[in-house]
């Protein structure tokens, strides 16, 4: 079976697994302890912070380690909302955001905040003009993802950040960077982002580790209170082995980005071109994120195509993994103006740079076979 669901999670680097095991075995001290065990763990934590900061070109003090992107996104959004509610209670985000942003905003709406969910165009983009038009004097936060986890659409973060900060310098700008890092160049300062979320397991690190970059001077209301770990933004003993492993994965993914993007882009274009030749399928992804091809099979439930491909030895995904067990059509595709049939038949293929040309050959072959099998079924049904 070939795995093509990298946007959901990735197999960890071999050396990340070894590192985590070694650190876990040797340095079990609590980084907050005073004795040597604690100091050693603290040193590892500090080095992890430096390595991540270098890779992301920020200051080590700006990194808050978390349990993953869901926590990072929740901390960014709720942390800002609760901290700055005296300034205003309005938040701007986009209708195609990941559930961890979308649902967090909805929860805040229940608590009396006002949230504007910006619509996207048929391509899934939101524009700087739209963002600025929706921003008001009582807006405290704008949250926009870098790369859409379902369709691979890339938002114009540079334009948005620059325009936003020019007109509303006090509004904080959060970027959910989970699907972008390691695939596309990341420029947190250039985007004028105040907050940036990352997850380790999307870039071949361990699950259960992530980070939030909090620009110097930005305060957050901590969601987890207790100890003073992570500058007081997130209490709880840091998971040293996972964080060391994450920092290695972040470094490796960053170093390989340019070359990986080149390889993956070629495969993405091959698969996309193939999808276009199959009349039953409709391509939804564009020439943006190098690791995602997304298409619909209108009239066919996505799950059926997924299982057919699975029988042919290829694992792909419907929607995002975080919502794929829901039987509903994709919120993202509906927001892009697709009809119910298209939005229910969405399939996402996502890869990593360790795939080979041969893997892609097999994928394409399986795709042709699957559509042929299901096509004959359709005819028979009629």
């Amino acid at each position, binding site marked *: 079976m070939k795995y093509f669901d990298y946007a959901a999670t990735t197999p960890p680097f071999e050396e990340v697994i070894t*590192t985590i095991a070694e*650190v876990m075995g040797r340095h079990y001290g609590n980084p907050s302890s*005073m004795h040597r065990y604690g*100091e*050693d763990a603290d040193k590892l934590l500090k*080095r*992890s912070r430096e390595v991540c900061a270098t890779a992301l070109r920020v200051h080590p003090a700006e990194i808050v380690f978390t349990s993953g992107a869901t926590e990072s996104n929740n901390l960014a959004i709720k942390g800002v909302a609760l901290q700055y509610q005296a300034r205003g209670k309005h938040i701007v985000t986009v209708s195609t955001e990941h559930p961890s942003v979308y649902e967090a905003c909805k929860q805040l709406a229940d608590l009396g905040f006002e949230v504007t969910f910006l619509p996207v165009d048929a391509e899934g983009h939101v524009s700087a003009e739209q963002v600025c038009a929706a921003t008001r004097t009582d807006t405290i936060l704008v949250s926009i993802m870098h790369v859409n986890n379902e369709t691979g659409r890339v938002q114009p973060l540079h334009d948005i950040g620059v325009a936003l900060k020019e007109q509303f310098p006090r509004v904080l700008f959060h970027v959910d960077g989970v699907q972008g890092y390691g695939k596309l160049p990341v420029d947190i*300062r250039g985007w004028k982002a105040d907050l940036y979320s990352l997850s380790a397991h999307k870039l071949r690190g361990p699950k259960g580790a992530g980070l939030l970059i909090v620009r110097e001077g930005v305060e957050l209301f901590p969601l987890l209170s207790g100890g003073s770990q992570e500058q007081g933004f997130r209490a709880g003993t840091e998971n040293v082995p996972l964080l*060391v492993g994450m*920092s290695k994965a972040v470094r490796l993914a960053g170093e390989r980005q340019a070359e990986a993007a080149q390889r993956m882009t070629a495969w993405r274009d091959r698969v996309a071109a193939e999808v276009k030749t199959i009349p039953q399928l409709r391509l939804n992804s564009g020439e943006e994120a190098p690791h995602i091809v997304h298409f619909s099979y209108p009239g066919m439930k996505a799950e059926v195509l997924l299982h057919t491909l699975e029988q042919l030895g290829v694992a792909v995904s419907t929607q995002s993994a975080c919502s794929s067990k829901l039987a509903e059509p994709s919120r993202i595709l509906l927001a892009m103006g697709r009809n119910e049939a298209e939005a229910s038949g969405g399939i996402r293929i996502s890869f990593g740079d360790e795939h080979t040309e041969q893997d892609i050959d097999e994928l394409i072959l399986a795709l042709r076979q699957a559509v042929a099998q299901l096509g004959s079924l359709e005819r028979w049904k009629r």
Partner: protein
Amino acid sequence: MHYDMLLLRFGEFTLKGKNRARFEKAVLNHVKLLLKPFPSASLRKEFGRIYVVLGGESYEQIIQVLKRVFGITTISPVKMAPVELDTIIETAVALMHELNPTEGTTFKVNARRVWKGFAHSSHEMNHLIGSPVLRELPVLKVDVRQPDIELRVEVREQAAYIFSDIITAVGGYPLGTNGKAMLLLSGGIDSPVAGWSSMRRGLEIECVHFYSYPFTSERAKEKVIDLARVLAGYAGRIKIHLVPFTEVQTAFTRTGQDNLIITLMRRSMLRIATMLAEREGALALVTGDSLGQVASQTLSSMNVIGRSTELPLLRPLVMMDKQEITELAKQIGTYDLSILPYEDCCTLFVPKSPTTNPNLWVVQKIEASIRDLNTLIEQAVATTETVVLEADGAIEGRKEEVVQEDWF
């Protein structure tokens, strides 16, 4: 904004006659060192100036880095144009557009014809460029006395340079052009600032830190190494000598002269630093003393403490207010580290009432009464650990057993 290069201007040392070449070379080397993370940028040297050709690198990031180079006074991001009037005008208009002036912004053109082969004089160019700019950007007004924007155009033989921003950089003397000194670096706010200030006057700095494990923690030592690493960010690399001070310090606690203990400690520190300075070829000691700030920094204390060394004792902060020092610490990036709450060896045995007016004769007598003091001092020097810190965080000469680099 789109810029092609950065123009770096030198400061006061341009007056230094024969030494000028040496000074310029030091700046050039320092710039080269700091540009390592920007591989596409390249350097061009011209009389009295350095140009950084950006080659697509971010001008904002590079300015942030080069603002720290000692000896550079100002930086201007520059657009380049071929030496033809039409393209020069076009580029000037483009620059003004990018500056996005609002209604009523005033400007003037300040053209210089450095290459006399160009057909139009400086005075003519002011008009030839000014009028199309006004035509294209009707929001602008001309003010030749105090304009909001001064559009500068320099015509040279190879190219014309068009710019308006002049960004202030750190200035001072190029790194290491005034010799070497030993900085007594504690974990506090002042001493890193003193180190930075002396580097800015062209001194090469090596750091000396005294630690007293188990009275101070390993983390206090790490904190000082981090502070030194911030200084390495200015110097490219920096040496730090870590002196085990516990034995010397505890010897003083046995004398029963509590109120003199700080004075005694400081004198020993200066002796040790002097021995290290001699070993390393440094010609002065630098401290973070600021007059009157604490008991050991009264004039009387400074007198008694200072007599323990024959080297010049430089105290760059001596006349500064705490507030000014704190501001500087924030600017150079040491403040956040300095306020981390770890004990250092001086806060440890602070007596209830340290003397503000020590007597040199008494102090010398106590020192003479400690039989093995000189041996303890020599031992401290002999067991000093020396570490070289690189700007990018690498540590040389130190066995890091905990942090295995292959884990990261």
